[in-house]
């Protein structure tokens, strides 16, 4: 605190770090509230900007939900994956039984069943319609087959492939058939969709940066005179920029919250019809909304993007506004 008649109070003002921090906080808080007030005083323009940002954020959020829900629908498919292990010929029933026991004892196998050549032949006759032709064969050409279902924890396509590979290596085993192909395809589609979400999020995120930046640019142009005066009396670029950065954060934060609202509303509208569809398929599937982490990414991401957009434009434009008087 300088005495009132000190010649150079600006330089003489030495304050304790605590006082400096509290005045720093006070200034930021003031700017924070003031910039919010500015937005509230021009509701129409603010709502338009928030709406555009919200739409840009809501789109990738919706795509994200499509992927999340599609993954949930297909999460249970592992239970239907079956492996068929064809044993080598010739093999006695005792040998085949031992192999089945060995397979069934594995941790990654839920259950293993032995199909004898006779059972296999009967099944083949009834399914293929080649019954008469098969009768013409001498004896039974079919081997013993062990059919198994992987344990729940090991039902991912990768784990199933590993299991199949290890079984193939057994000396008694001839061929292992794992029908993981369609699961692989499904997962590939989901992975592609996730990539689409990422690309869309990236592009629309850039869009949010551009929207916030452009809005701030207009704001800066509208307040040129004020900026010049502030610079004339010794305001630094950082000081002039600060309120614009807060505006950008408000735009992003508000847009993020609005996007959350939009997505939640959409989920609310779709939940009932989708549950009816699920019920018709005897499924207990329920449409998932955004979880806490996704909401945080949406709202926090919005704020960060708004800040980036305003920082870029404010830094660029404010440097070019120099007082001329």
């Amino acid at each position, binding site marked *: *605190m300088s005495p*009132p*008649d*000190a*010649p*150079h*109070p*600006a330089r003489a*003002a030495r*304050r304790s770090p605590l*006082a*400096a921090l*509290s*005045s*720093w906080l*006070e*200034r930021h808080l003031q700017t924070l509230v003031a910039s919010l007030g500015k937005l509230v005083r021009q509701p129409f323009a603010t709502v338009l900007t928030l709406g555009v940002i919200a739409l840009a954020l809501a789109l990738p959020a919706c795509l994200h939900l499509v992927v999340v829900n599609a993954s949930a629908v297909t999460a249970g498919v592992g239970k239907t994956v079956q492996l068929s292990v064809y044993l080598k010929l010739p093999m006695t029933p005792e040998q085949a039984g031992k192999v089945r026991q060995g397979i069934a004892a594995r941790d990654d196998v839920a259950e293993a069943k032995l199909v004898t050549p006779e059972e296999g032949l009967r099944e083949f006759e009834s399914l293929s319609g080649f019954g008469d032709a098969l009768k013409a064969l001498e004896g039974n050409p079919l081997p013993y087959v062990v059919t198994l279902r992987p344990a729940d924890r090991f039902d991912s396509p990768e784990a199933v492939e590993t299991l199949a590979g290890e079984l193939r290596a057994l000396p008694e085993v001839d061929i292992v058939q794992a029908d993981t192909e369609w699961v692989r395809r499904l997962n590939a589609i989901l992975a592609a969709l996730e990539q689409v979400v990422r690309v869309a999020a990236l592009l629309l995120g850039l869009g949010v940066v551009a929207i916030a930046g452009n809005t701030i640019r207009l704001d800066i142009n509208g307040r040129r*005179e*004020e900026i*010049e*005066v*502030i*610079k*004339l*009396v*010794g*305001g*630094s*670029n950082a*000081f002039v920029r600060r309120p614009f950065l807060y505006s950008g954060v408000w735009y992003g934060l508000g847009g993020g919250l609005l996007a959350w609202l939009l997505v939640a509303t959409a989920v609310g509208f779709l939940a009932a019809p989708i549950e009816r569809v699920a019920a018709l398929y005897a499924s207990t599937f329920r449409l998932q909304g955004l979880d806490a982490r996704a909401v945080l990414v949406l709202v926090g991401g919005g704020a960060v993007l708004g800040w980036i957009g305003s920082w870029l434009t404010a830094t660029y434009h404010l440097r070019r506004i*120099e*007082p*001329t*008087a």
Partner: protein
Amino acid sequence: MIAFQRVHKRYPNGREALSEVSFDLASGEMAFLTGHSGAGKSTVLKLIALLERPTRGQVTVNGLVTSKVGSRGIPAFRRQVGVVFQDNKLLADRPIYDNVALPLVISGAARRDMDKRVRAALDQVGLLGKETSFPLELSAGEQQRVGIARAVITKPPVLIADEPTGNLDPDLALEVMNLFKRLNDVGVTVMVATHDVHLIERFRVRRIHIEHGQLAGMPPDVAA
């Protein structure tokens, strides 16, 4: 406090605004910068406020050579120099309090401190009680005094003014000029650019006269 050493200024459009201008203004001294419109008075003030840089020569303000102040140093430099403009450059959408407090806000003064100093500055220019008015609600003379209050609120060692009485009738002009003299009496180095010869005849203050961008044979100096 303010020193020009063989200062030369040519604007990008080729106009020679100043050539070979040298003068010294001691700390606590006051001077009128006189000359016709376009003689280069504004350029001198712009060089002092670092709104422009000299093409050649050296400008020193408050011990700082302006050519050694980088663009990042300009804001801190300008806080050492209070500037008053002919058109006062107040922010029309802000009350008087905010206008006067602006330099304090920029330098990060605490709120408590600010109230006290804004009142003191307004008191100094005779406008105490106008804190919540807006600039356009005040007369031209009052607006100019608000501009002065803003320029001196951080107690800068140097105060410069460009035609501060240009838009005022003689009584108000005298009042405003008296204010500058009082600020000088309390130790501020003051330089006022004006072409109002009749007005400055009433003050025993040094004159720096510029003609066509050069220091001209000064009209009889009066010791401050």
